[in-house]
Structure formats: structure tokens, C-alpha cells
């Protein structure tokens, strides 16, 4: 069984889950043991992804705009 490196990226997790899901969809020959391995990996990916999503908090910061400065002198009025 291919052991993929554990990733911190939700995107990578989703990609791995999509691959596992596709594996199950395309499974014609029964390989229960391999299937169980994949289920274990998928369960871990789903768990960590959900935990990560639930922990996310927004950061809000108000910043000042920088004025380029229109201090100009009239050459004549």
C-alpha cells in the first residue's frame, strides 16, 4: 500500500481523499485488507481536516491608508 506523506494542507488532504474515493468507486476485485488500510487513512484525513477547519479563526486588522500626498504649490493663481 502506498503510504502518502501526511500533509498540513487541506487541499492535499482533499486530493488524497479524492484518490481514495476513486479507488473504491473503481474497485472490481475485492481486496478487503487494502480497502481497510485506505479507510483508515481516509478516516484520519477526514478527522484532521475537520479538526483543522473547526479551529480556524479569523484575524481582523484595520490598517491606515497611505496618502501619496497632493501637496502642491500653485505656480500662480
Amino acid at each position, binding site marked *: 500500500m502506498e503510504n502518502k506523506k501526511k500533509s498540513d494542507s487541506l487541499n492535499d488532504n482533499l486530493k488524497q481523499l479524492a484518490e481514495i*474515493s476513486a479507488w473504491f468507486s473503481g*474497485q472490481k476485485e475485492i481486496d478487503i485488507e487494502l*480497502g481497510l488500510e485506505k*479507510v483508515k487513512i481516509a478516516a484520519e484525513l477526514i478527522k484532521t481536516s475537520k479538526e483543522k477547519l473547526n479551529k480556524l479563526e479569523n484575524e481582523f486588522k484595520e490598517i491606515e491608508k497611505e496618502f501619496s500626498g497632493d501637496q502642491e504649490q500653485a505656480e*500662480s493663481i
Partner: protein
Amino acid sequence: MLLFLYKRAKCYNADMEFNNLQQNIFETGPITVDQFIKQLNDRIKPVNVKIIGEVSEAKCGPTGHMYFSLKDEKNPAVMSCAIWRSRYNLFGIQLKIGMKIVASGHCEIYAPSGRLSFICDSIELTGEGALKKEYDRLLAKLTAEGLFAPEKKRAIPKFCRRIGIITSKQGAVIHDFLNNIGKFGFQIEFIDSRVEGQLAVGDLLASIRTFKKSQIDVLVIMRGGGSLEAMLAFNNETIVREIAAFPVPVIAGIGHDKDVPLAAMAADVAVSTPTAAANLLTQSWQEIFRALDHYQSTIIGGYKNLLAQADSKLRQHTGILGNFRYILQNIVKSLDIKMAGFMAATKSAITAGASQIEYIEKIIESYNPERQLKLGYSIAKLNGKILKSAKSVKKGAELDIVLSDGIINSQVTGTKLN
């Protein structure tokens, strides 16, 4: 008519200061013209007003500053005005004689000429007709340049984290946005900007340019709905071009009635409410939750299917074994039946054989000469051979009479034939 809109407090303070100035002048004696003009400027420059009038004269100076006169529409009153190049370019209005505008700014006396001028911070067209005409002109111009072309639109990045927001701190827009943005670990950088009227142009431009240097994934510019006049800043050419050329995708959440603000048309995605803008940003994150649920269901479901398939095959094999056992049982049963038949036949044959033997025995027994002898019969032998006829003996011949318990030696004395 010149319309002066004084800020009440400032106006009151200016009046007070002017009275003080008057007193000081008389107390300290004569001052120079330059000093006097400076003192006047110190007092009149802080007073910001908006004046409305018709452009009666307009000329562009060698350095690009614009000098023009505004005359009252009804009364014989004229004000000399100036707007510096950068401000003039910012508002994107080509001043022409006869144009009705509102100018915001302050008065100032130019010392070398002693001329009082109105220095404009902003200028804006007034009247829906003029605004609509300007809107249509700019729309046609920028459309022809391809600024709003669909192929220029960029997709809002998925799972974006750093969001830049430009809107007013006042009002419900920012609150609606924050109430709907959810918790997805966004880093939201917010710049408070005026969004109403022409005075917002400078604010918006500075905000956009500040974010241009910032590391954000997407920029969101928002304001509530309003009239064409209220939307002036969002139909400003400079602003529209800044949005179109912004380095990362821009979402415009600008409410509008009829005419879509040009800023919204230049943005990569335009929505009409802050809630819709927030939803757009959370969409990809919401999809993660849906995707996780989907994968959970398909993977676990897929494995259950595998188990079901395996179970089904197992049952199938068990069925085959069951059939085999049944067949074996049948064979055994059949063998038992055959064996029983065979045994029965054998037994019967044996019994029949035994009867036969017994019968034969009896037959044989019945023919046993010894049995006859015991019954009283005897066997006559002549020269060791059984004598079967009286004719075979002659007188004097010696016969052996065999009895059951011995032999009698005898001699024939005569014969009688039957």
C-alpha cells in the same frame, strides 16, 4: 447662486478668531500686506465649503493645474477657482464652459496678486442628466478599450486567506460582511474609506494603492446602494482603471439601482451585497465541508460494499460446499441402499443355497445305501460287485451279504426268478 456650506463649529471659531484679529490689528498698529494676507489665509483656509455654479471660464496652466471661474446661475457673482493637476486628473472630469459642477475646497488669497481663489479639493458634476451623460461617455470609452472584457476576469482563488477590504467603517456594510464571512482563518485587512460622492475618490484611490503593496489574495470593495450622484467615486475613471489593473482579483460588492457602477464592471466579480461578497469568499471553504462529508460517505460506503461483496462471495462458496455435502450425503445414502440390497440379496442367496444344500443333503441321504441297510435292506455282492439280477448267479456261487452292521458270507443254493 453661491452655496456655502460651513461646518458650524469651524465657522463659529473662524468668526471669533476674525474678531480677535480685528482687535489685535488695532492694538499692535499697522502690519505688512504679506503679514495681513498670511493672517487672513490662516483663518480662511481651514474653512471647507462646497459651492455650486456654472463653469464660465477654464484654462489649463503650463504645469497641468486647472484654473476656472464659477459663476452664480442667477445673480451676478463669480468666483475664481483652481484645482491642482493631481486632483484634477483624479476626478476625471474635463471642465468645459457651461458645465454645472459642485466644487469642494477652501478659499485662499494668492499673495503676489492679492487675488482670492477657491482651491478645489474635489469637483463633481451635478444633475442626473450630466452625470448620466458622463457615465455613458466613460462606459463607452472603457468598453472600447476592453477594460470590462469577460476574458480579463480572473477567478477568485479557492481557499483564499488574506482578504483586503475597502469600505466605510460607518454603516451596515462592513458588519453584514463580517457577520457572513464565517470562521475560516481569514486574515482580514480593512481600510476605512469614504464611499459617498466625489470626496471618496481620494480615499478610495489611496486605499487601493495601499493594498497594492500589501500581500493579499483578494480585494473586496463594498458600499451600499445609491444614486448615480452617490456613486460618483465608483464611476471615476482613475478608480476604475486602478481596479482593472489591480494585481490580485477584485470583488466589487456595490449596490446599485439601474446603472451598474463602472468600478463593479471593472472588478473580476461583481455582487450587489456584502453578504454575497462574503459568501463568494466562503464558498470554497464550505465546499471542503461538503467534500469531506462526501468522501466520508463514498469511502466508508465503498468499503461497506467491498465487505458486502466479500460476504456475498463467501455465502456463494458456502452454498457450493453445502451442495457438495448434500451430494455426498446422497451418494452415501445411495451406497447404503445398494449395500443393504446387496446384503439382502446375499443373505437371500445364502439362505437359498442353504436350503438347496439341505434339500440335496436330504436327497443324498435318501439315496444313501447305508440308510437302506439300517432300514433292514442288504446288498448282495458277487466278487465285490453289487448283484443286481438273480440270473447273474449260479448255484454254489459265494455271495457277500452286506448289512448295516456287517457282512454275511453265503453260498447260493438255488435261484428263483420272478
